[in-house]
């Protein structure tokens, strides 16, 4: 049962072959039995999930069901869930129970989906290995000592380990695509503004975007159908019609123009990695796509610009965690300054503090122009690169990350090496474009992800391209065991 996709489970529920309660119990049991190996969940919502499942079964019997009614899934623990603690994997929010739903949470609730629990992640979504979580690192189901990637490492590992058929995730610099690649699943970061950020705990507001993780492109499309849309509570969400993303999955790819950014195919890619990606692209040519080289001349500036802009925004976004109204508060503060310094000193982990300090520095008087304003200029150049490239081609393809899953601890003490993990994903966030990662092969027995980047609001085309590939390959069906 746990090997089935969301689409299959939805059909089984509709056909009455299984009840939501049975399905939900099955996944809850799997989490109970298996998750000690992965640590992919921070909170499991057993009682709530079973109650939601019973309600879903009742709705099904009344004939008022959506495709999601009764289908289990999980939320990254960055989405606020009314009445269920939402930690952002931080000590700061260890006991924080929001009295409201994120809009994404509310959308899944309205669709009748059953939330199994809240998945592990890097603290405040800051990390590329899921090693910065206050609740412990997550293990990649493909290899015992391997990281699942981050920051949505818990969601990726849980889907790969088939503890949940699907999970929500967020992507600020690659946090959906990189863990999807490292865990051998499919993950989509939509266009900035496509999915509401309301109730999604902010890391870097101009870059954060909620998205989808599941094994197949079709399941991602089903998720996006629930998540996408304008939200009056988020003034950066865009008011644009939402298509049925599953409706165009079977469009033929004949004539699809694929661009390969030459800056993403350099010698930093191992021959085995490059070969795997080239094989996937060859498969697309068989499907009727034409391939050409394109250039993103400012690609090498993306990481530097990102690591000014994202920490700058984060330094302000995380100021609200001050021990005054909610969340962690230090014991027995002596005065206001002591309350602030100890609450934040004790409540945040090392990587979060590093980024707050970097961001504070970049915004400081005397440095603002040289760092923050310069980074904004670079951001515009990078955005223009993509706009230019996407005039020539329909989509861009590249490896999602330079190498397969690395070992735990390998990069944890070297922030810059860790930051380079996002070298192929980060520019997409700066440009606000949609991109997905899909499994495209194995190197040393570990999954490799192919990244497909599209123009603004081209999610349907990206999902179509991924789905067509998944009709002629089975990489997305490979399981770790």
């Amino acid at each position, binding site marked *: 049962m746990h090997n089935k996709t969301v689409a299959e489970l939805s059909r089984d529920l509709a056909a009455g072959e299984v009840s939501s309660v049975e399905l939900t119990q099955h996944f809850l049991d799997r989490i109970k039995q298996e998750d000690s190996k992965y640590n992919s969940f921070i909170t499991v919502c057993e009682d709530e999930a079973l109650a939601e499942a019973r309600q879903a079964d009742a709705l099904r019997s009344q004939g008022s069901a959506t495709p999601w009614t009764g289908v289990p899934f999980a939320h990254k623990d960055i989405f606020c869930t009314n009445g269920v603690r939402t930690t952002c994997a931080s000590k700061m929010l260890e006991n924080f129970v*929001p009295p*409201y739903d994120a809009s994404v949470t509310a959308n899944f609730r309205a669709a009748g989906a059953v939330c199994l629990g809240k998945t592990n992640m890097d603290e405040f979504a800051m990390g590329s290995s899921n090693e910065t979580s206050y609740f412990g690192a997550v293990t990649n189901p493909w290899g015992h000592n391997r990281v699942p990637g981050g920051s949505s490492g818990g969601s990726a590992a849980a889907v790969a380990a088939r503890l949940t058929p699907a999970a929500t995730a967020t992507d600020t610099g690659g946090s959906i695509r990189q863990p999807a690649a490292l865990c051998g699943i499919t993950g989509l970061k939509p266009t900035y503004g496509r999915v509401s*950020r309301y109730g999604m*705990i902010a890391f870097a*507001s101009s870059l954060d975007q909620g998205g989808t993780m599941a094994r197949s492109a079709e399941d991602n499309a089903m998720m996006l159908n629930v998540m996408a849309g304008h939200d009056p509570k988020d003034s950066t969400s865009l008011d644009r019609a939402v298509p049925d993303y599953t409706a165009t999955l079977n469009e033929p790819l004949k004539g699809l123009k694929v661009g390969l950014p030459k800056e993403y195919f350099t010698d930093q890619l191992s021959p085995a990695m490059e070969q795997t990606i080239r094989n996937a692209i060859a498969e697309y040519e068989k499907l009727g796509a034409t391939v050409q080289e394109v250039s993103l001349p400012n690609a090498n500036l993306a990481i530097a610009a990102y690591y000014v802009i994202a920490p700058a925004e984060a330094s302000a976004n995380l*100021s609200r965690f001050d021990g*005054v109204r909610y969340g962690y508060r230090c014991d*027995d503060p002596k005065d206001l300054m002591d309350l602030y310094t100890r609450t934040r000193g004790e409540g945040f982990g090392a990587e979060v503090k590093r980024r707050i300090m970097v961001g504070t520095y970049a*915004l400081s008087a005397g440095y603002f122009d040289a760092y923050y304003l310069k980074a904004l200029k670079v951001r515009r150049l990078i955005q223009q690169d993509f706009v230019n490239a996407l005039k020539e081609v329909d989509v861009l393809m590249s490896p999602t990350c330079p190498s397969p899953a690395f070992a735990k601890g390998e990069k944890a003490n070297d922030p810059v090496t860790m930051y380079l993990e996002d070298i192929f994903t980060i520019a997409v966030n700066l440009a606000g474009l949609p991109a997905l990662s899909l499994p495209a092969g194995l190197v040393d027995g570990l999954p490799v992800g192919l990244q497909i980047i599209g123009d603004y609001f081209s999610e349907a085309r990206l999902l179509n391209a991924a789905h067509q590939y998944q009709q002629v390959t089975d990489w997305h069906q490979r399981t770790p065991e």
Partner: protein
Amino acid sequence: MQWDVVIGLEIHVQLATNTKIFSGSSTAYGAEPNTQANAVDLAMPGTLPVPNEQAFRYAVMFGLAIDAEIGRRSVFERKNYFYPDLPKGYQTTQLEQPIVGPGHVEIDLPDGSTKTIRIHHAHLEEDAGKSLHEAFFDEHGHGMSGIDLNRAGTPLIEVVTEPDMRNAEEAVAFAKKLHSLVTSLGICDGDMSQGSMRFDVNISLKPKGQDELGTRTETKNLNSFRFMEQAIAHEVERQMDILEDGGEIVQETRLYNGDRDESRSMRTKEEANDYRYFPCPDLLPVEIDDSFIEDCRSRLPELPDARKARFKEQFGLNDYDASLLSGDAKLASFFEEVAARGKDAKLAANWILGEFSARLNAEDKSIADSPITGAQLGDLIVRIADDSVSSAGAKKVFEALWAGENDNVDAIIDAKGLKQVSDTGALEKLVDEVLAGMPDQIQQYQEADDKKRKKLMGGFMGPLMKASKGQGNPKLFTEILKKKLEG
């Protein structure tokens, strides 16, 4: 040495929107602490601001009223600092691209002249909450401060002037004019005791005639015209003392205690925060288009300057009365109501600026709290004008109305026997009767010169008023007496 005083103001004006600038919480004043603070106001994780269109409309109306350029692209920035009543750890405000650009306001000076005060800009921002430093204690017995976030997120415009004022009088005249403008526009309730307008005063001194400005200080959060005047006088004196002693002014922010007429330093320039402003990524730049501006323009009411001119023209009021009555929108509309009903506008103006205002002030009431309606005061004016009641009688009617004894002017006049007798036949008869008993006084009067006669006239009026039970029209009595005595 002789010194020039240079004053610039920054004024926080709370906008009278129903809801907050970035959330749907009510902005009503006086609710129980923290009952008007929702998840957005509390800066709960993941919550986001959504701009309130009404706040933009009010800001643009203000801009149009001061003849300012309207910022077509309005950008919010984050001003970062930690304080317990600032829930997000930053204030959402505007810096580089404010909604209202340079404009100007004319002020009237006591000598009858006018002066132009230039406005540098006005920007939209959110108010902070309030810290209540009362006796709260934690479980360890440590003192704590209470935080009330009802005010957090209330929309403000901060109006920043150029340093165009030269003394406290000008600064206060400007402050009053601004108060008059925003209340006339209906964009602020103007209630200074509730903090609806708060003034920061920048003051510097320079040797008379010198161009270069001296070092300035900023005195913050003055919430009455009187405190503002006192604080300026205090600060000018303090700076003058330092400069005359050869000292230097420290650039700093000061707090003024109006009750003690003292000020103290809050922080110096060196201690000032680096606010690390940057554009708020949760809010897109707001584009203000022509149709929005035209819509705002169509909502502009008559402004104080235009109203004053009309009061002079339409009602024949003098400059001083017209100024006073046009300066406060509520007072102005009250006056118009009374004048329309009472027919005699000058008499209405006298009563409103005299008896009525004095009574409101004495009881610390606003016009909205007045127990006397405009219609009632209008009716009273009618009865004074048609001689139905004497001015002394009118005061008694006013008192009865104020005390709520009766709500009808004529009924009070009847009940209290204040109806003035103006029937000349009846009055003549009374005069004849009274004069018949006062031959000595008549002779005395007739032998006196004009100056003395005026005094002696009182001797007849007393008995006459008594004989008429106070209801005789004194003006007519005087006329009849003169006729009888002087033949």
